[in-house]
């Protein structure tokens, strides 16, 4: 069930340049089902900024009633968010959307998790849950440069982890697709989250593979009511020629959504 909750800030720290890891506590955590779901955070009470910000759930700790998000402080809202200190309260709506279907993989299979920039966070909870299920996971994480790389060690705990940076300052120089090609990575199912050009490249390359892509769109409501976040689909789904990223997604089977 979707809840609106005033949650407590458990911790906040800058883990790479302008990249923040924020841990929140509250009852909503019990409702979180899948990696890849997101929450809609109001960065400020009051009217400026006005809208909530969609941020993926990066780690769930049901025992402690806590979950983690990782985000880049970029615009007005995320910059305000980065100023929240321990014990301050934050208005969160969630959990929202449909995440990565972890049951789509069985324990004999290998999963390739591909993340780009701030698309990396939801893959962390995914890696954890897949590993727990006995699935082997490999991780390819792409960033602009070494300064904004985060969670390399954390991912390594769950499986082989490769880094790509656009400027070559860490790992392979170039994009995640370069790494996959160069290392000739083998896998049965692919899970990806990141900028649309990255998803588009993966969708073209692996359209015949089993795979799931998590999308981004500018959002209004975050719950499916405003039609802000629609995408065209390649074939009608439930008689509709579109899907809503917020409530039908953000995760879709590879090949479903028209990416450009």
């Amino acid at each position, binding site marked *: 069930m979707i809840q609106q909750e005033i949650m407590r800030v458990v911790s906040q720290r800058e883990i790479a340049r302008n990249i923040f890891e924020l841990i929140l506590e509250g009852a909503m955590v019990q409702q979180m089902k899948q990696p890849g779901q997101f929450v809609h955070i109001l960065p400020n009470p009051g009217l400026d900024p006005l809208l909530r910000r969609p941020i993926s759930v990066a780690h769930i700790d049901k025992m402690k009633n806590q979950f983690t998000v990782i985000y880049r402080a970029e615009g007005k809202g995320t910059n305000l968010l980065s100023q929240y200190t321990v014990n301050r309260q934050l208005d969160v709506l969630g959990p929202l959307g449909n995440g990565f279907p972890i049951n789509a993989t069985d324990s004999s299979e290998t999963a390739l998790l591909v993340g780009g920039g701030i698309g990396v966070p939801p893959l962390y909870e995914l890696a954890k849950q897949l590993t727990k299920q006995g699935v082997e996971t490999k991780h390819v994480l792409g960033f602009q440069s070494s300064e904004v790389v985060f969670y390399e060690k954390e991912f390594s705990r769950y499986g082989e982890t490769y880094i790509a940076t656009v400027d070559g300052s860490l790992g392979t120089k170039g994009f995640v697709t370069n790494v996959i090609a160069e290392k000739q990575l083998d896998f049965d199912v692919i899970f990806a989250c990141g900028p649309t050009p990255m998803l588009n490249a993966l969708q073209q390359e692996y359209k015949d593979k089993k795979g799931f892509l998590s999308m981004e769109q500018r959002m209004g409501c975050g719950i499916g*009511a405003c039609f802000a976040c*629609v995408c065209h689909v390649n074939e009608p789904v439930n008689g509709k020629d579109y899907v809503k990223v917020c409530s039908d997604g953000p995760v879709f089977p590879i090949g479903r959504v028209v990416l450009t």
Partner: protein
Amino acid sequence: MNRLHVELPGLSLKNPVMPASGCFGFGQEFSQLYDLNTLGAIMIKATTLEPRFGNPTPRVAETAAGMLNAIGLQNPGLNGVLANELPWLEQFDVPIIANVAGSEMNDYVEVAKEISKAPNVHALELNISCPNVKKGGIAFGTIPEVAAELTKRVKDASAVPVYVKLSPNVADIVGMAQAVEEAGADGLTMINTLLGMRIDLKTGKPILANQSGGLSGPAIKPVAIRMIYEVSQRVTIPIIGMGGIESVDDIIEYLYAGASAVAVGTMNFSDPFICPRLIEELSNKLDELNVSQLSELVGRSWKSYAG
């Protein structure tokens, strides 16, 4: 007697608060959050004759105390709404106000005729003011003669009272209101969005794929209040007011200005529980203001009253 009760043409409202068209879909999503029976009414998303996909994305952009949208009237079309959306809404004891849009007058007339027959549709909201479609839409909303003609034809076709939704993008809102009143409108809803734009500093291009969009939210409230204040003194039909409502004080301000009921749009996104919350708070507010009936507040800013 329920102090929040409001009686309007076609609408017997248990309270004056309803979600605004386009900000609440056809109710299904919000029904997962709270009981829709608490609402005074529901203004459903615009319905056009044919299904529409709407505009490319991005369709929304944030602005200071407001937002822009260019959804482009995405909706499943008249048949889809009649077959799926309205029947689903019948489980609730809430009057539906059907927002009617189109590109040609005939489209409007056709939609109005059919949708007004649905048992739970108690009124139509004639959307002559949508800024986000290339044909029709706002054109109907800026030329009084055209708006009047359209109103007349829809009114003739409709089985229920017709409210005309006015565009604020005009120099003379009173002239427009009077034109549609004369043409037979049973009520007005105001305001729709102001035309606006934001440019993405990274790309240098407009953020919205549609370039411009409709500005809504608290930023536009003073424009709405001014227009309702002016119009309510010059027409005899009631007004459902909207534009940036986010608090019970805002509702009172709208009533004082001359609105008989209100709709909440954009703020449903920041606070999805806003409608039931405002309805609850409104009751306390009436105690505080010491009024026995909501209607006593309507038009207070320009009516002279004792006390």
